[in-house]
């Protein structure tokens, strides 16, 4: 009958050597997705060291909707563009189900090609013929 109070959405960023670790908690949805993308992209571009890995930790994630998944695809694009590999760690069941249903799990966690820092030609998904 009423809107329930929503759990707080949190993003915690840890940086260690060439790995960026991001803890995502709460609901990743229409309202919160843009914030996560912005945070990750900021760190990707601000780090003086070239990152080899970006680890998203979903231990405290309580929900993800289609916009949240769209955000993960964007983060993957940006991560691959700098030659880093994306890892989706400690995925709750609902996240795993959504990734498998949409058949993007393998794509999102594929090893980035370290040899080619512009490796996104192969893997970023934005090179299709119909790109606008």
């Amino acid at each position, binding site marked *: *009958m009423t809107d329930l109070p929503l759990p707080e959405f949190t993003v915690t960023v840890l940086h260690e050597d060439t790995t960026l670790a991001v803890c995502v908690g709460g609901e990743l949805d229409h309202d919160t997705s843009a914030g996560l993308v912005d945070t990750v992209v900021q760190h990707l571009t601000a780090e003086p060291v070239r990152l080899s890995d970006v680890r998203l930790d979903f231990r405290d994630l309580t929900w993800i909707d289609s916009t949240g998944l769209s955000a993960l695809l*964007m983060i993957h694009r940006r991560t691959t563009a700098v030659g880093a590999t994306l890892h989706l760690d400690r995925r709750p069941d609902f996240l795993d189900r959504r990734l498998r249903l949409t058949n993007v799990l393998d794509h999102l966690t594929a090893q980035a090609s370290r040899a080619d820092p512009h490796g996104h030609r192969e893997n970023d998904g934005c090179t299709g013929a*119909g790109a606008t």
Partner: protein
Amino acid sequence: MRYAPCVPPFVTASPGISARPPDAGHLVGATWTEAPYPVLIVDRYGGLVEINEAARALLPGAASGDRLHEQVPSWLADAHQRVSGGQRGSSAGPLSGPIKGRHYEAHPTAAGDGDVVWWLVDDTDRRLAETALSDARTRTEILSDVSSTLLSTLNVSRCMEVAASLAAEHLADAAVLVAPRQGRRRPLAYANRGGPVSQVTRQVDVAGVPGLAEALQGFPPVPARWIDPVGLPDWVVPDGFAGPVGSVIVAPLPGHGVSAGALVLLRSSAEQCFTDGEEVFARLFAARAGTALSAARLYGEQANVTATLMRELLPPRLSSVHGVDYAGGYRAAKDHERVGGDFYDVHPGSDPSQDTLVVLGDVAGKGLDAAVLTGKIRNTLHALLPLTDDHQRVLNLLNGALLTSHHTRFATLVLASVRRRGTRARVRLTSAGHLPPLIVRADGKVEESATRGTLVGALPTVTANTVETTLAPGETCLLYTDGITEARGGPLGDELFGEHRLQRALSECAGLPAEAVVERVRMLASQWIGGGRHDDMAAVAVSVPRTGPLTVLNGTGARSSRRNT
């Protein structure tokens, strides 16, 4: 704001003093003879005993010994009769009335021997002030009434009707509201006081009414006294207007930066001409009416634009095609919106031997942004219809068309190609990252189709597998979006509706027509949500109509099926 009665205190202190001539004047002395108020001493028979200087100035011919009723208006003479007859108490409140063009309050005081001393207090100016104040208040009330009545509607025609009717009621004998041109013609609203408003749209010559063309262009108003009512064209006088027009006001209706039209007020020659004050008031009225009309017109234009753009995005109405029933249901995430990120279409095969293509999908995101992308997908798929023998090829082409470097907004969808064969229907199903369709068998068993595939619009390549199944009469294939299974609510307030509950509900829908299945699913999901937030929800049922009667009558209603409220 009533003034306190201005009775000098010494008058009330004089009841014991005889006013009988010749001493009366001497006894009361200079105090009253020189008072600035007219004072009359009148005996019980209505004869003037004595009057003071101020009274002589007011009633130049009056002298002692005159009859009172010959000198003063009857209201005062009658009041004297009542007072000297001892009926003072019966006429409560101050006595007052006009004398020689001014207005007076009369205060009587007994002076002994039945004489009455009348003090007359001039309250003309106070009364004028009070009238003006009350007029101003009435007008403020009218204006506020006008504003709230007009602003309550955003319908232009209703707004015109109300404005014309209020203008005729408060400002004139009749009012004509002339709206801005629509093509060659103008909407017009006519109102006679107390009568119904009639509205027409027609071509009229506004130049025939002095000041009207200017008012419609937003120029300053032409004063009423410049407008000769004799030359008015017929179109501006409402049917049933009583008598020739005596005076006219043309008031512009200022809109938000542009003219919202003009108001023509008419008064018959039997009435007084419009005063300057009335003219000013008419302009205040027109300013409010203009604001309301502009708001209504703006709303109407926006609503039309939205409706036009939306028409393409609204879900289609489904029916039977080539012996197979189709039914769809849609609910946008926000109740004030009609479109969102879910979509469906049924493209009938050109003849019964051709496949009918059903598409149901979901774009990441909500609201108009998402709806625009659904429009693109629906158009693209429409263009790809000749290729739908091969679902995977269609999905690859669609994926290519949607890919962009700007964002990763993707869509998931299901394609279903349906063709009737004899009593059954063959259905080919392909999911592109979407929830697999559910098939409700005639015996109530619910199967999940085994198709899986990649979402479209975000990855360079997509894959999917197509499965084929057959629907017997009374069997249904349900395509649905996750807004239904992810509806949150239920009796405990925070649970997902879930696929399990959906399948349970569907198992009770064996043999039902497609519409009834969709309605049942929508109803259960909506009731699960209650008043809570939700995502877009869509469902399409594909059914082969049953031929014989339902076989499960009588006594099989389990307790599990008892909620339909």
